[in-house]
């Protein structure tokens, strides 16, 4: 990966870091207060959902990067990377769902789709490197 980062990429990294910091804090709070039974009612719902909203912040940061990146070649690499990630996550989740429905595999929590997506960013970067050479894209560095 090149050391050069566009202003849009720097903003992306900052946004991802903020989202991940929020994720760590809210996940810790949700586990300690909700799962361990110290909180109930609407507030518990809100707190339990907050880590997911922080992960959505990473998706938003990636979308903003596509919008804000002014270098069209880098933008194309990023779009390819995101398409590979989305395709990978959706494909694995779909096949797993049918396997689970058939009773062949165990249940996996739905938020693992997000983890598949982040793993897919790595695959997308690899795909870019293999087909375009050089820089594999820019999303996922800070995730």
């Amino acid at each position, binding site marked *: 990966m*090149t050391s*050069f980062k*566009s202003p849009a990429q720097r903003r992306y990294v900052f946004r991802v870091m903020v989202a991940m910091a929020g994720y760590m804090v809210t996940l810790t709070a949700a586990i300690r207060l909700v799962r361990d039974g110290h909180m109930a009612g609407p507030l518990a719902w809100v707190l339990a959902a907050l880590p997911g909203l922080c992960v959505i912040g990473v998706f938003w940061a990636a979308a903003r990067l596509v919008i804000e990146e*002014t*270098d*069209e*070649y*880098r933008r*194309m690499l990023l779009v390819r990377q995101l398409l590979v990630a989305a395709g990978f996550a959706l494909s694995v989740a779909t096949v797993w769902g049918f396997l689970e429905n058939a009773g062949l595999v165990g249940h996996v929590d739905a938020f693992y789709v997000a983890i598949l997506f982040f793993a897919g960013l790595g695959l997308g970067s690899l795909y870019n490197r293999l087909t*375009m*050479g*050089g*820089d594999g894209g820019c999303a996922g560095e800070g995730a």
Partner: protein
Amino acid sequence: MNNRLRVLRAERGWSQQDLAERLEVSRQSVNAIETGKYDPSLPLAFRISDVFGLTIEAIFLRGE
């Protein structure tokens, strides 16, 4: 699409980085265009044309 970017750049003694700075794109973009891995948009093609002082047809050639 073929192009004469590398030759035109060499004639002027510019590095890929020099050209990238003139075009306000990354060096990777210049490299991808030069090697035919990426065809620039029309606005970028016009910027390239302006930087070299040539028409787009004098820089980019028809064909794969």
